[in-house]
């Protein structure tokens, strides 16, 4: 008889699996973590290369010399902005028209769900200004976007100046085959989101914006620039976008080749490029950059206007000019030349960027790890969950076999009585934890006004505190659910619940890892050991502590500390806590304003799952 249908052999197999399971799980978990750490090292990381044939080499002659013009535009912009307090729309319109573009404006307004304390805004209304440079000899079927976000905290006046000077220079060339849109947005990313939604004629986030008057064709690529000083020492590039989406790697390769051509110092995640990849220093530095990218991608925040473009499958990058204390500085002409070169090469494109990778990790600007090489790390971690679930299944079936007085149950035996009762007792914890998750998702924002009436806190604080309160309240539940269910729940019932919880967690983490590997891996690395180890027997305080420390909130707190540590700006406990509260508020806010999915994923998906493990722990 076959291996799985022969009861004797099946029992032997079950015993083998049960005996080997613990070492296998440990091995698998260690393998997953080790694989991830090895991603920064040479065999798993490859040099980047340009895949798009149409973009070819950097063989263009940059002729931009408008550095002085850019500076004068920047000064004027800063002065008008100081005078009016908001974006000087009339001045921008006049200047863009004088440079030769077709100018349009768009007004938008949005009432945020609760006041944003970091940006100090609640009812936001503003105007975007954009000018279109039409391609002289082509139909306006495709376009490129050059955008500068202007907010209250960062004026980006030099970026606006450079935008206007580049527009003047581009207007004098005849080799443009795509329209170029020069976009200046107000209120940072809110303006960008309003413009993008109006351009693509969708309404994803509830923004009220006036319709656009001028269009320019399908957007092929976009570059965002943030520059607040006349000279820069380096250019930092941000690639991670909303919900962990990434632009096509070719766009980054393009930027990197122009950095090399112009001799500019370009950084990724604020870190310099390691030169020496043969010894240990290079890969270790690469590992730091990789961890930073993983943390940034896992947060799912758009780290610049480019993050919002990615949703519409427009490849985009954000370039930030950094002025540090280095001696060698580059002026606006150098930055302008790099941008000119990039746009000229993007002009050669015939189709959207699709030849290179869409899913990758970057240990350095010139090195990448492709999805085929990093996915096994997540696979190993999820294998632990699978093995544990298998073990529980075997144990449950053995229990069922044992209960049937040693007779040979057929391969398709109905559920043993133990499992039958367990099924009823499963429904209650599942429903209750999902309800808690739902409460965590809805109540904070819904109940903020009620909270402010009864407690002396602002709305943002009320939201955050309600979040934390519901989170902790969930921890107090297990005893209640246990009493709700009949007290004669047998000893083995917790196994069924843990089995369901493990499968639920594995499914969720698997789905998350496919679209946002960083988030999936981070959550798996923290939650998998706790999920695997939890059981009602054994040292309960230890397991409880482990579960709490690996819950979603604690993971967020820990990753914040790790992030600042890697950026060489470590936090004290108090600062960390403040940052944590601010991050919670931002997470909820971004869900409502941009459609970021981290908050609903954690609240509706992972938190209920985590509560199920808490239930398992306190089964008795």
């Amino acid at each position, binding site marked *: 008889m076959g291996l799985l249908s022969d009861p004797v052999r099946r029992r032997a197999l079950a015993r083998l699996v049960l005996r080997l399971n613990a070492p296998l799980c440990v091995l698998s978990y260690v393998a997953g973590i080790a694989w991830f750490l090895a991603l920064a090292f040479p065999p798993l990381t490859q040099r980047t290369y340009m895949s798009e*044939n*149409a973009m*070819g*080499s950097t*063989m*263009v*002659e940059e002729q931009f010399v408008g550095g002085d013009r850019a500076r004068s535009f920047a000064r004027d912009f800063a002065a008008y902005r100081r005078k009016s307090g908001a974006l000087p729309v009339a001045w921008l319109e006049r200047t863009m028209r004088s440079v030769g573009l077709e100018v349009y404006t768009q007004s938008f307004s949005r009432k945020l769900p609760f006041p944003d304390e970091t940006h100090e805004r609640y009812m936001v209304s503003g105007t975007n200004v954009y000018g279109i440079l039409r*391609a*002289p*000899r*082509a139909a306006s079927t495709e376009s490129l976007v050059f955008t500068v976000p202007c907010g209250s905290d960062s004026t980006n006046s030099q970026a606006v100046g450079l935008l206007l000077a580049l527009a003047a220079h581009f207007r004098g*060339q*005849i*080799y*443009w*085959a795509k329209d170029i849109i020069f976009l200046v947005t107000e209120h940072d990313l809110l303006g960008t989101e309003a413009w993008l939604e109006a351009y693509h004629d969708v309404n994803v986030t509830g923004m009220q914006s006036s319709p656009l008057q001028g269009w320019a064709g399908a957007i092929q690529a976009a570059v965002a620039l943030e520059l607040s000083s006349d000279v820069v020492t380096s250019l930092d590039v941000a690639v991670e976008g909303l919900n962990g989406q990434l632009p096509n790697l070719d766009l980054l390769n393009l930027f990197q080749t122009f950095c090399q051509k112009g001799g500019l110092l370009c950084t990724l995640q604020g870190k310099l490029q390691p030169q020496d990849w043969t010894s240990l220093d290079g890969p270790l530095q690469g590992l730091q950059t990789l961890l930073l990218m993983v943390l940034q991608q896992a947060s799912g925040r758009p780290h610049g206007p480019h993050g919002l473009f990615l949703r519409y499958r427009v490849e985009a990058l954000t370039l930030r000019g950094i002025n540090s204390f280095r001696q060698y500085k580059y002026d606006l002409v150098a930055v302008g030349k790099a941008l000119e070169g990039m746009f*000229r*090469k993007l*002009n*050669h494109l*015939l189709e959207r960027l699709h030849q290179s990778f869409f899913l990758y990790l970057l240990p350095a600007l010139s090195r990448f790890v492709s999805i085929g090489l990093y996915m096994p790390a997540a696979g190993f971690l999820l294998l632990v969950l699978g093995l544990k679930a298998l073990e529980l299944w075997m144990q449950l079936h053995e229990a069922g076999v044992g209960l049937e007085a040693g007779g040979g149950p057929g391969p398709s035996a109905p559920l043993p009585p133990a499992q039958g009762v367990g099924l009823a007792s499963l429904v209650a914890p599942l429903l209750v934890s999902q309800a808690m998750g739902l409460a965590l998702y809805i109540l904070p924002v819904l109940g903020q006004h009620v909270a402010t009436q009864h407690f002396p806190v602002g709305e943002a604080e009320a939201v955050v505190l309600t979040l934390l309160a519901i989170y902790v309240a969930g921890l107090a539940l297990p005893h209640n659910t246990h009493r709700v269910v009949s007290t004669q729940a047998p000893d083995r019932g917790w196994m069924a619940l843990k089995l369901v919880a493990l499968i639920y967690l594995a499914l969720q983490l698997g789905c998350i890892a496919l679209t946002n590997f960083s988030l999936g891996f981070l959550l798996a690395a923290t939650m998998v050991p706790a999920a695997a180890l939890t059981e009602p027997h054994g040292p309960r305080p230890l397991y409880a502590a482990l579960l709490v420390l690996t819950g979603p909130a604690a993971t967020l707190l820990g990753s914040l500390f790790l992030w600042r540590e890697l950026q060489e700006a470590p936090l004290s406990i108090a600062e960390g806590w403040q940052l944590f509260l601010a991050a919670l508020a931002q997470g909820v806010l971004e869900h409502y304003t941009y459609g970021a999915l981290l908050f609903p994923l954690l609240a509706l998906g992972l938190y209920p799952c985590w509560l199920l493990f808490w239930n398992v722990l306190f089964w008795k």
Partner: protein
Amino acid sequence: MISDDQAEQFFRSGHTNNWAVLVCTSRFWFNYRHVANTLSVYRSVKRLGIPDSHIVLMLADDMACNPRNPKPATVFSHKNMELNVYGDDVEVDYRSYEVTVENFLRVLTGRIPPSTPRSKRLLSDDRSNILIYMTGHGGNGFLKFQDSEEITNIELADAFEQMWQKRRYNELLFIIDTCQGASMYERFYSPNIMALASSQVGEDSLSHQPDPAIGVHLMDRYTFYVLEFLEEINPASQTNMNDLFQVCPKSLCVSTPGHRTDLFQRDPKNVLITDFFGSVRKVEITTETISLQQYSEMESSYKEDQMDEELMEPLKYAEQLPVAQIIHQKPKLKDWHPPGGFILGLWALIIMVFFKTYGIKHMKFIF
């Protein structure tokens, strides 16, 4: 007095007219260099005397007026914009999407719909020398046409064989400038073909002349050096094919150019460049008279030639319309064959049964 040996020598090469088929199989801006290649050869061929009516030029023609061209209406072959090969009088016969494998093969074999204008036809005869130049992206045994189809070396060889059977050329020079170009001439089997390629199988043909002002490569190496070589040829020059084989050695071209002359009947050192790249303009003014043989002697020599001809296998066209198969006529009289073994065996069986039934003693009346 000029003897008839000299008169014979006057017609030594055997061709009376020249044609050129110049094909660029790529389109898109980043394939600028292929169009520049083809236009450079077009320019040389026109300069050396072949008129537009005898040139079939197939180009995608999307370079000069491409929105990305910083110098509209020009196609340059040298950087620093020395040489505009597009000029004022380019006559493109097959333009843009008309450059397909089907059109190319129809041009070569002459199977063209009757509505095709004369400028799009290759009206060659059995005394035409044809130059065929192809450039684009290729691989081992194929050439890519406009990013959507390919022609294989076997199809090309068969097309040339059709041309040979239809008497559409006297001699053919085939030049190809693509990656792994030598694979395209490996399969030729028709007589009187000489082939040159820019690289061997497994090698890539490299581009030349990167121009930052225009933003693309302007030429391919092999054609660049061929163009340089051709710029020194004038209609009266006596340079022969062996010199063309030496153009672009590996040190300049990085790839190894190849050539094939085994199908060609004349020795390459006797073949002038102008036999293919120029047009026959054999005029020699003489004030003396040429005394040719008497007509009768010529007639007898002509008859001898005729008898020689008859000894050769008679050439006939392949049967193009097998009427018999279509109308299911009875086959014509065939030679008599003895009946098949089956019938023989059947009769033997019948006889044996007969004698078995009626007694074996009757058999002795037969034997």
